[in-house]
């Protein structure tokens, strides 16, 4: 489970959010579905920025102060401000945004369970192939 796990989680969440948006807008309510999709998009952007921040700037050897400042500016005031503005303007129900935002964690849990339950995952977690001594 490397950093590729995060990329796969982001891609799956975007796909899941798009599917929920399409089905929800057709069968349920398109504004509510748009709120779910926007929440999923915001959650993915948040995770992507955290990943970039950690991988490139916190743990990397060479740091470019200008790019670090730019990332910090985009991640903290701009992304959070956009989320705040979206909730404040009330374009869609707040609950739908929260549901969309939570999709990414659902995907993380399901992917981790998938890794755990597959054979390779069980070997990685040392749950099978153990010898009983004695």
């Amino acid at each position, binding site marked *: *489970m*490397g*950093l590729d*796990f*995060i990329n796969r989680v982001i891609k799956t969440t975007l796909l899941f959010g798009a599917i929920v948006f399409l089905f929800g807008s057709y069968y349920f309510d398109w504004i509510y579905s748009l709120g779910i999709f926007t929440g999923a998009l915001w*959650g993915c952007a*948040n*995770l992507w920025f*955290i*990943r970039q921040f*950690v*991988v490139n700037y*916190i*743990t990397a050897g060479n740091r470019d102060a200008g790019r670090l400042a730019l990332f910090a500016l985009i991640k903290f005031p701009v992304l959070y401000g956009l*989320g*705040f503005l979206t*909730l*404040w303007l009330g374009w869609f129900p*707040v*609950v739908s*945004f*929260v549901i969309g*935002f*939570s999709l*990414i*964690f659902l995907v*993380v849990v399901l992917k981790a369970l998938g890794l755990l339950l597959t054979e390779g995952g069980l070997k990685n977690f040392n749950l099978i192939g153990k010898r009983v001594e004695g």
Partner: protein
Amino acid sequence: MDFSTALSFSLPIGLALAAIGSGLGLGRAVGSAMEAMGRQPEAAGKIQVGMIIGAALIEALTIYSLVGFFILSGKIGAH
């Protein structure tokens, strides 16, 4: 003290407590991850993934409390 007054006092305090808890938790998580990476640089990839997901989860809790603030702030003055 009526419901609206109690809510207008407790909402900002609750949000501030959530932000403080999240900040402390995030600082502790990132600090421990940095220590672990310093001790075992070969396991940095796996530690980074756990740290990123943990940081996102901790941030999410604060965002949930902010959303709760938004939902409940509409009830101030309604009663």
